[in-house]
């Protein structure tokens, strides 16, 4: 499964800084090089933040190739619009991108995000109490986290497509164009969704590049668009801009709800994990909808951004955003809704982890072995063995994927034992010789 993280082997120093940051313990350092267990990686990007040697990067498409294919159609994450010194207004962004011969499809976003919010609002209204709170599927790392670690929460995931995918579908339907689309993403998870989507068989986008790369190109290649396009004061931004930061989605969904709903907005990986643990224990009754984002402050906090997430947030907060839907467009919205273009085509399924053994008896045996091996390890979780913790090390050893000698403390003990043995041996004399004074 694609995870959107690229390992640059030459740059990896095997320092193990990264492996402890991984929420699913998906990283190992083996023979001095980092590896990612792709089947349990949620593509959150935490490890990229931790690597001091730039050995972990976003797995984006070749930038030169994308440039060579211009005019290229772009679907950018809303957070892209917050990366610059000018206010996050789509008209300005369009101008700057046009100058570089890119064609953003911002015109489709309004309908796509509106129909997404409407679909979520209706899903909440028609959902039974035991499936509440429903959980947003907007953050693909959250979806993967649930697929891998929180299987009981899968029925809570709202079966609604990413509005970015929906935007592309709307654009293709309207323009009848078939040329490729490049997704501009601020995180590995969205990039991964282009390669291995969840809930549909293939993504509507063909390529993926990072926000920071395109933002740099804009900064170098096009002047400040606010000098060419005039925008009225106070600055207004469409509703979908608000989705770039935590809370925007909930505002939008609430505006389409026919009765008041209780939403909970949570961001940051640790918070999201705590929240899901509490949810699995049945502690979140009375909440209708959870908007969870693994990045701090939401998508503006993604590792692939160029701009400070704090400044991005201020830029969004300074915009006038009208969440009241203009009823004149109701008919059009309902027809898009009826076309079900917003719906995930396939059910989200759990990603099963291999149990320790084929049946319970064997698994129990393995677990006992694991406890025995673990008891022999120093419990320092130092990471030098290339595993995030002594427990994971014990697990790897029992699975046959590691050796006790990978633990330097064990190795030191063995060397000490060995040198003692060598010393003792050296004291032993040849049996034919018994010099005086020795017995």
């Amino acid at each position, binding site marked *: 499964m694609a995870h959107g993280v690229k390992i640059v082997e030459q740059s990896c120093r095997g320092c193990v800084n990264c492996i402890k940051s991984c929420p699913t313990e998906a990283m190992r350092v083996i023979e001095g090089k980092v590896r990612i267990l792709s089947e349990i990686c949620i593509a959150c990007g935490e490890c990229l933040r931790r690597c001091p040697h730039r050995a972990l990067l976003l797995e984006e498409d070749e930038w030169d190739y994308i440039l060579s294919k211009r005019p290229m159609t772009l679907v950018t994450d809303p957070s892209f619009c917050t990366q610059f010194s000018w206010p996050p207004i789509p008209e300005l962004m369009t101008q700057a991108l046009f100058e570089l011969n890119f064609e953003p499809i911002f015109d489709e976003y309004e309908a796509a995000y509106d129909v997404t919010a409407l679909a979520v609002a209706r899903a909440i209204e028609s959902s039974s109490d035991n499936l509440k709170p429903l959980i947003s599927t907007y953050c693909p790392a959250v979806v993967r986290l649930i697929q891998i670690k929180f*299987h*009981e929460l899968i029925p809570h995931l709202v079966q609604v497509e990413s509005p970015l995918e929906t935007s592309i579908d709307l654009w293709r339907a309207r323009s009848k164009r078939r040329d490729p689309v490049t997704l501009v993403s601020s995180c590995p998870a969205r990039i991964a969704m282009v390669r291995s989507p969840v809930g549909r068989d293939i993504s509507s986008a063909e390529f993926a590049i990072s926000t920071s790369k395109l933002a740099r190109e804009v900064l170098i290649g096009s002047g400040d668009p606010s000098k060419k396009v005039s925008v009225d004061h106070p600055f207004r931004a469409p509703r979908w801009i608000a989705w770039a930061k935590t809370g925007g989605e909930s505002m939008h969904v609430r505006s389409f709800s026919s009765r008041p709903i209780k939403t909970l907005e949570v961001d940051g990986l640790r918070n999201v994990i705590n929240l899901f*643990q*509490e949810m*699995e*224990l*049945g502690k979140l009754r009375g909440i209708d909808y959870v908007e969870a984002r693994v990045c701090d402050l939401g998508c503006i906090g993604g590792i692939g951004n160029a701009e400070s997430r704090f400044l991005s947030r201020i830029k969004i907060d300074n915009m006038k955003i009208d969440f009241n839907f203009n009823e004149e467009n109701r008919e059009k919205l309902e027809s898009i809704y009826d076309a079900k273009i917003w719906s995930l085509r396939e059910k989200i399924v759990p990603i099963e*982890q291999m*149990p*320790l*053994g084929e*049946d*319970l*008896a064997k*698994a*129990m*045996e393995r*677990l*006992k072995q694991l406890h025995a091996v673990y008891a022999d390890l120093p419990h320092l979780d130092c990471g030098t063995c290339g595993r995030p913790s002594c427990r994971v090390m014990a697990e790897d050893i029992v699975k046959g994927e590691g050796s006790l000698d990978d633990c330097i403390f064990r190795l030191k003990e063995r060397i000490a034992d060995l040198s003692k043995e060598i010393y003792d041996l050296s004291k032993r004399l040849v049996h034919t010789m018994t010099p005086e004074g020795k017995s």
Partner: protein
Amino acid sequence: MSEPLVLELEVKPLDFLAAGETATQFKETLKSLGLPPEICRRAAIVVYEAEMNIVIHGGGGVMRLQVEEDKVTIMAEDEGPGIEDLELAMQEGYSSAPDFIREMGFGAGMGLPNIKRNANELYIDTAPGKGTKLRAVIYLNKGR
């Protein structure tokens, strides 16, 4: 039949945060054994509520998880004040938790009834001044 697998954890009094962690840890263990999600879920709820009771009412104690080929047993033992009227304690909504605990969102009186609902068998050995021993059994091949 192989030997049962036993996991044991000490529970400190009034350590509210740790309670969720024990439940999560025991659940991870059950998952790694390949037990059905429904069993893991029920066991986690029993562990959580039983441990919470040790934390809030029992003054600290021990939690034990025992896995055998046909069942999972959860044991919670403390040497706290014990339960005076067990029948009353088993009723939904009954709680003796003091105000400061209710203000923290605990003490809704649903713990013991929740344990009963999720376990196939429940035994509680308690008397005032003698502490409380709870044992809940979840069978792998039975519903609840």
